[in-house]
């Protein structure tokens, strides 16, 4: 799973019928310290995440195992909104 921040929304009228009613968000990957990293994702939101919130993203076929994503064509789902991150000394940069 990855950490990312919500930076926008995607609206698509023509899409796979199984994606109807699903909210799609644009995410920027972030480090555990909260710094922006390169790369972005378009993910299905299962937790009603809001703009600028840091979220947990699950990717690959596991993304379909999130509740509400069964048998739909997704490879990236938002499955949590981060409250806090604790980082041990070993994980700090430098």
């Amino acid at each position, binding site marked *: 799973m990855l950490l990312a921040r919500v930076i926008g929304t995607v609206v698509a009228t023509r899409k796979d019928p199984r994606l109807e009613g699903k909210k799609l968000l644009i995410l920027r990957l972030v480090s555990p310290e909260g710094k922006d990293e390169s790369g972005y994702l378009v993910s299905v939101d299962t937790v009603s995440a809001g703009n600028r919130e840091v979220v947990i993203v699950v990717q690959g076929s*596991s993304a379909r*195992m999130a509740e509400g994503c069964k048998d739909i064509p997704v490879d990236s789902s938002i499955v949590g909104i981060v*409250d806090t991150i604790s980082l041990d000394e070993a994980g700090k940069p430098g």
Partner: protein
Amino acid sequence: MTLGRVIGRVWATVKNASLTGQRLLLVQPLTPELNKTGKPLICLDSVGAGAGELVYWCGGREASFTFLPVEVPADRTIVAIIDELSIERGKDS
């Protein structure tokens, strides 16, 4: 499967119902020589790993198999805590 060290935890109150009760750990991927490689990742934990422990995790869809028959949206799960690691060094390393 990949080696890593537990470097922290992530808390999320609002999460997908199928993740209820799961521990989320931050893991730094390591080379077999235990040097850092790549960015820290979030893994689910199936073995009770703690801070600073050396572990390996299973990635991809198989990461959720450890929780069967419950379907959990996991793409990386810590499946073992490493006791000992030995590497045979060749001439070229």
